């Protein structure tokens, strides 16, 4: 799902070279012991233990300092639970960090769960209007792009079919095409899944390449090390919520594959 966000002027450095900067960013999640979700249980817990607290906190991201320059492709790797998705959410502006500052220069969109915002009962065109309005695009602006999007997704003949009847590939193609159309300055990609067949994949690669060539930035999370080494300029390695390395792709992958690399499991968390 692509998300566009114009700069939130919290602190707008915008010196023209940096796309994203994170300073001391921390995100604390709760780790529930036994999560009471009702008023009754909260009261019972209070009576029993003298506290409403039923959780401990852990740092999904811990004091992250990161600078992402413009016009680069950055890869983010790490084991499950190392904080990759959380990091993307923070970058996208969807999750406010518990501490720290995020600076953005340019519009952001994230390509994560395709079609999260689509209504299955509506057809492709209606969904495109809905999707576009979520990014504050005017009806006229959306209308002008509809045929282009459907053309790219190769779904013109299914434009009036409710999307719940689409195959998963069709749905993903529609989601991807709608998302790409937002044309942000910074693109965040989380495990971009098997979208369509090879021909379509090639189309997507071309789009990404055009992206980079026009000086935009891509941040990619993936487990596909070979692809990352081939495409990215820099790779950031996360481990247990911390950045342990940021630099040359090959070296990053080696660090990740090193037996000393700490996952949350090996650290006994």
């Amino acid at each position, binding site marked *: *799902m692509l998300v566009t*966000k114009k700069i939130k002027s919290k602190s707008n450095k915008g010196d023209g070279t940096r796309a994203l900067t994170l300073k001391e960013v921390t995100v604390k999640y709760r780790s529930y012991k036994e999560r009471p979700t009702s008023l009754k249980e909260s009261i019972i817990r209070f009576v029993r233990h003298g506290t409403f607290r039923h959780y401990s906190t852990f740092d999904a991201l811990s004091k992250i300092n990161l600078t992402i320059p413009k016009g680069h492709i950055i890869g983010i790797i790490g084991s499950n639970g190392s904080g990759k998705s959380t990091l993307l959410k923070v970058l996208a*502006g969807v999750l406010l960090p518990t501490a720290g500052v995020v600076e953005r220069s340019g519009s952001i969109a994230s390509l994560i*769960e395709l079609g999260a915002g689509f209504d299955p*009962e509506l057809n492709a065109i209606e969904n495109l209007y*809905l999707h576009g*309005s*979520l990014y504050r695009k005017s009806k006229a602006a959306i209308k002008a792009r509809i045929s282009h999007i459907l053309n790219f997704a190769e779904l013109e003949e299914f434009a009036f079919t409710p999307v719940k009847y689409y195959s998963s590939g069709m749905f993903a193609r529609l989601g991807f095409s709608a998302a790409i159309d937002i044309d942000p300055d910074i693109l965040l990609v989380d495990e971009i899944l098997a979208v369509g067949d090879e021909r379509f994949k090639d189309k997507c690669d071309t789009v990404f390449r055009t992206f980079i060539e026009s000086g935009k930035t891509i941040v990619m999370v993936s487990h596909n090390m070979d692809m990352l080494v081939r495409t990215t300029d820099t790779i950031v390695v996360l481990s247990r919520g911390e950045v342990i390395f940021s630099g040359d792709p090959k070296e990053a992958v080696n660090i990740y594959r090193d037996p000393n690399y700490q996952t949350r499991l090996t650290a006994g968390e």
Partner: protein
Amino acid sequence: MIAAVTFIPDFFVQLFLYRGYLCQSVIRDLRTKYKRSMLGYLWTMLHPLGMMVILAVVFAGIMRIPVRDYSIFLFCGMLPFNFFSSTALMSLGSIRANARLFGQVPVPKYIFVLSITFSNLFNFIVALVPLLILMLILERPIPITALTFPIMMIPIVCITIGVSLILATSNVFFEDTLHLSEVGMQAIYFLSPVLYRREDLPQWLVDILVISNPLFNQIEFFRDIFFSGVLPDPKLFAINLASSLVVLALGLWIFKRSEDKFLYFV
């Protein structure tokens, strides 16, 4: 505290920025609501009509409340109450229901509550059509004061949004809120002059209700412009409007304070 009040203009700015989404969302709701049913959108009118017929038969026919044209009396009171009640109850689950969405796209989260509000508002206005038809059939004159209905709706909409925001926030942290609210709505239903008139209650009770339940006056105002052809006392209306705006501001404040935590809880 004064700095905190910036959330009010911010609310209107966001409302304007996302007007496209609100519009699309309401259209979407209307499209999908009765998509497969035979009668389709007609149900928006038939549903309140049906409810009113049942109540009229029970109360006018069986329990005999001595009001001429009781069915119209009921209908006028039901419409605003149902708008309030269904918006509040539907908003309760709206945050959780849209978690996938705002987990990816940064949107101001009250947009979901507003979307429900405007959908229901549209249905509210459409339901005026069967009301007028009913009045024509029963040969009850439609007073000119009925034209002021948009003004009468303003305080109702304000308090509905305020209460819906509070309930939606609460439900994120305490899922019981839904059940409590369903019971609460029933209570408010009977504490509002939908089924009865002000005169049917002891004065001391009316005095308490008028102060504690802003809907009490609002329902009366709304009903009177259709049923009795009477405009509300301007002072009373102003006070009621002011208290509704306070509830709206309160709801916005509570919502904004908690909004950033939602993603951690849904």
